[in-house]
């Protein structure tokens, strides 16, 4: 499909909001993060926000690189610290809508302390945490969300540590809007991101994304389409025949309890 035909079919011309001189982008073919970027642009369009009052802040990692491709006020900060910059920006400029993009390593390992404090402060930020269970940028090391048994470059015999449940963590820390979405459920993603941005207070969306290049390859999960199908089976929204099966997804996710997508927690302020 040409870009024009795509624009006609989806009602949005993504090029309008992309920073074309920044292209080509760095993402690998099949990377799930591109799906999130498009969902974010559609969500912003659905809210009819003023692009001159929008700011995008990110940390370090493949997911964080997304902000550079958005034609807006974009701030690519240091590893794990996006929420600290975003907090300062929002407090100094309450007129701005501030969206934060982070990853599982960025947001939950090196930036974990900033995440729980941002949730506790409940500053009006929308934080999207793209969880692909690995450090893609550095070549596929184990992350705080990696499911036990997974192979990574630093767990060649399989991960052993229990992972974080990011949504439960930020809910306990005080976030007033918490949701989970997935790249395998892209239309729901639009609604969740839009709701997170519209919410006043700290809103958090964990987005299950895929890294075919490392996590997929090391765990023999196939290429992007196969990974998306397997990912889908990890959520409640799977059809009954699949849900009836005793396992969820392919190894290493087989046997892992299924996750719920949608809005998990909301406190109106």
């Amino acid at each position: 499909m040409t870009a024009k035909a795509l624009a006609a079919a989806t009602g949005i011309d993504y090029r309008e909001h992309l920073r074309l001189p920044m292209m080509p982008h760095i993402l690998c073919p099949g990377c799930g993060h591109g799906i999130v970027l498009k969902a974010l642009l559609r969500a912003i369009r659905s809210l009819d926000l003023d692009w001159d009052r929008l700011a995008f802040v990110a940390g370090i990692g493949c997911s964080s690189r997304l902000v550079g491709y958005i034609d807006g006020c974009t701030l690519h900060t240091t590893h794990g610290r996006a929420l600290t910059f975003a907090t300062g920006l929002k407090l100094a400029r309450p007129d701005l809508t501030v969206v934060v993009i982070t990853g599982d390593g960025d947001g939950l390992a090196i930036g974990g302390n900033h995440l729980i404090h941002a949730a506790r402060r409940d500053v009006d930020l929308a934080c999207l945490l793209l969880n692909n269970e690995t450090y893609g940028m550095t070549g596929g090391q184990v992350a705080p969300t990696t499911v036990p048994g997974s192979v990574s470059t630093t767990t060649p015999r399989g991960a052993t540590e229990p992972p974080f449940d990011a949504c439960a963590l930020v809910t306990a820390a005080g976030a007033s809007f918490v949701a989970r979405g997935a790249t395998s459920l892209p239309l729901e993603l639009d609604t969740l991101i839009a709701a997170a941005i519209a919410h006043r207070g700290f809103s958090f969306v964990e987005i299950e994304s895929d890294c075919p290049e490392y996590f997929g390859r090391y765990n023999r999960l196939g290429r992007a389409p196969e990974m998306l199908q397997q990912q889908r089976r990890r959520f409640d929204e799977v059809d009954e025949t699949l849900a009836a099966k005793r396992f969820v997804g392919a190894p290493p996710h087989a046997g892992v309890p299924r996750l719920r997508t949608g809005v998990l927690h909301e406190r109106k302020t």
Partner: protein
Amino acid sequence: MSQLVQGNEACARAAIASGCRFFAGYPITPSSEIGESMARLLPDVGGVFVQMEDEIASLGAVLGASLGGARALTATSGPGFTLMQEHIGYAALAEIPCVVVDVMRGGPSTGLPTRPSQGDVMQARWGTHGDHPVVALAPYSSAEVFELTSRAFALSERLRVPALVLYDEVIGHLRERVDIADVPLARGERPRPSVGPAAYEAYAPGPDLVPPLADFGRGYRFHVTGLTHDERGKPTDDPAIVGALHRRLQEKVVRARDDVVSVATVALEDAEVAIVAYGVAARAAERAVSDARARGLRAGLFRPRTLWPFPDAELRGLASRVRALVVAEMNLGQLLLEVERVAAGRTHVEPCLRADGTPLTPEDIGTAIGEVIGAAV
């Protein structure tokens, strides 16, 4: 009207008077009074105070606020200053104005939380990785804390560099009579784009090598990154662009050097021996000079109010005139290395060092003066 003003309080009042409207910090002795004063003062002028979860977050928030257009401040001491190095480097490369005050205590590590030191001089210069420009000012009285904090804001905004203010615990907690109305406020604005949003490039330098900076959320859309970038902010590893960027970052401070470097002197005209000292050590040095003069010894004081960039030219001239330079500082020899580099054998350099958590005394410095004069005679 003069009042008793504590050094740390003078710092906060200078920040407010200089238009600072954002403070993010984390409590740490002996700098906490700066944050406490800002928490009291900022709401009345429409500013924002936030206590963050650590010092990394504090400087992160300051940089975010600065990009939104606010003049922003944080304050800390040694251990926190160590954590802030990450974002001092970010501010240097991404060229975001900010002022960081470091009230120096004994180190390394938790060290001596309530005792003075001057042990962070080299950390201020080289604490963050990579080559980078740094401006660091060193006041020695409450009045000068006020003056140099204001100057730090002016320089940081004008040059788009992190500006550091370094003073020891004694200066931070000293209460002195100050007539704030008499202390000059420095003026310096961040350069603003002269072109419209379509033509704006956030890292295209002006004639003074400083790129104009737009605020986030006022019509200009641009990318800010800690990756090495081209004039549009696009990450690159093109050696020509990378090399030119690093040189420009240094050169913009070198070009403004005469406005940045400031030295105060006492009785240097006929001095045989010059003391080099800053902060509270310079207070002891002033007394040591008058005591030496009373004994008929021709001593003088060279007091850098700017530590970085180091006042090379000013000291070089002096080094060729005096018999000896006595470097008096409260560490095991940090600015000493710079003095030796600049003196380059032109004169004898005598260390007068103390790193035991107590201030240098006039007697310590007097003894050093006596020794070098005795040795030279």
